[in-house]
């Protein structure tokens, strides 16, 4: 421990070893998986919505990785089957998230496919769920006296609607809602699919 160079070389070698295990081998293993037939690349509109999701930081409160029934009741909550690596084949940046301040959104499109619901909820989550702590996103909407032709008017319960005005969704809001509705990974996956199976139990399942 009296020489700098060997110290630096050994330290970097250890990091290289870790990088091989944690990054390079998984990349080859995961990259080898074909995208499932039921999964489609994002359309231009969905991709714009996904960019909004990234820019607004939705990922800091919403995960996109349901767990297996052996571990947690995610499926019973309607969040869908446990996700596998191939489900994310078109995702960059990945948006798996690490927090569930709000519910998992991996299959929100299957669970809440209503564009109208999504827009109302983005404008004011507490109009729908009074207990919600999700931010409201009024800057994705316009409050007008009267809707112009072609405007997407957002329906709101009377207590949350601005009196005498209409709320109209900006294109950003519609893109974001289109992305959310596209989040539907309920197609079947092959038995070789990759995920963390460390919670599997004897005799559970079928």
């Amino acid at each position, binding site marked *: 421990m009296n020489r700098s160079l060997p110290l630096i070389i050994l330290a970097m070698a250890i990091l290289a070893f870790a990088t091989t295990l944690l990054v390079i081998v998984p990349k080859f293993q995961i990259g080898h998986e074909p995208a499932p037939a039921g999964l489609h690349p994002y359309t231009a509109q969905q991709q714009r919505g996904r960019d909004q999701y990234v820019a607004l930081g939705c990922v800091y409160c919403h995960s996109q990785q349901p767990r*297996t*029934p*052996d571990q947690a*009741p995610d*499926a*019973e*909550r*309607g969040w*869908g*089957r446990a996700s596998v690596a191939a489900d994310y084949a078109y995702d960059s940046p990945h948006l798996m998230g690490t927090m569930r301040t709000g519910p998992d959104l991996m*299959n929100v499109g*299957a*669970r*809440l*496919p*209503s*564009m*109208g*619901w999504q827009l*109302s909820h983005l404008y004011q989550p507490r*109009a*729908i*769920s009074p207990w919600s702590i999700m931010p409201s996103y009024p800057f994705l909407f316009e409050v007008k006296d009267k809707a112009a032709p072609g405007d997407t*008017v*957002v*329906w*709101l*319960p*009377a207590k949350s609607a601005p009196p005498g005005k209409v709320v109209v969704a900006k294109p950003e809001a519609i893109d974001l809602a289109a992305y959310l509705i596209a989040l539907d990974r*309920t197609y*079947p*996956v*092959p*038995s*070789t*699919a990759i*995920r963390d*199976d*460390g*919670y*599997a*139990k*004897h005799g*559970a*399942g*079928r």
Partner: protein
Amino acid sequence: MSDDRRPVDERFEPYEPRRRVPLPVYWIAIALAIWGTLTLWRDAHAGFIAGRQRGDEAAADTRRAAAPGADLFLARCSSCHQPDGSGIAGAVPPLAGSPLVKADPSVVVRILLRGIDGPITVAGQHFDGHMPSFASVLDDDQLARIATYVRARFGDNASAVSPSDVAAARAWAAGHPGPWRGGDEIRAALMPLLEPQPAYVASLIAAPDPSILALVQHGTGGGWSCASCHGDLGEGHGDAPRIAGLSSPYLLAQLRAFAGGARTSDAMAPVATSLADAQKIALASYYSQLATPSASVPALQGALDRGEALALDGDSAKGIPACFSCHGSSGFGVAPAFPPIAAQQPAYTAGRLAGFARQAKQGSHALMPSVAARLDDADRRAIADYLATLPPVPTGTAPPAEQH
């Protein structure tokens, strides 16, 4: 702090020339290494089990998705049209020898997509047509397979139908909502050479008010529509339940409960509150008459044999009565108090059972809460997945009234 209590000389500390690593550090390292090895073994084993489990599920999914036309026909069509395509005299038209089957492929496909609601004459026999639409429950590929099978077997080896044919028909059907209005409309639109058809009578099933259809498709004030969550035909998605074919009094009671707060749902409460009572009545009536094929498939990794046992026989050891003892044989429901549970979306069933269990914890002694309190997580998933495999309440059949 500023007063100086610093010992003047603390230098006489007996340092060893070389202090060894304390022995407990070694013991801890060895114990951790042993634990690590055990963990690796255990997780490798778990991975093996999960892989096998997923294999079984994938096989079932593949069977469902890639079923050849014959299997799809058996599952979806044969209970009415009969396995040999002969139909049921006076109730269901035959497929064998039907001119509709032999005609242009688009005819079969368009009927599958829209369904029929109106009188029809096939091979000289008159029928009250009530065929559900399969548009939202089968994909293009599956519809193409069914159509091909039906045409090949019952239409004198008529030509095959491709998924792109179905896609084209689907695009057309989007502009023609609702079922075919009996043979009359089919003849007028598709087959002018078809034998004369009886006139369409609107009153077979009370045709819904256009304003109710608008509500179903577009909601109030352009907001959330029923169809946007429950599907075009009320077949349900995820934890939005299947509502097609549930009894009208049951549906109405739920809508009123959502509005009044007796039943809680963040998504339903604002909707139910905004509906007038007349609209609630009309909607309940509309959905109770919808004959929609099942779109539910097991999705919760439930043990289907356990689910079947609970549904048919219950579990006397745990004090769980059979589901079907109240909800009717086959889970078709007993009006008005016991809704149909067959073909329900599994995430909804499981979530609803969990909700009842919560009510029991909160002190409810009502029937469902006390039953649900005895179900554990695996049981809820088993029942929900099993019910999802069952066929829905049959077309045009009202659930039998409760016997007293």
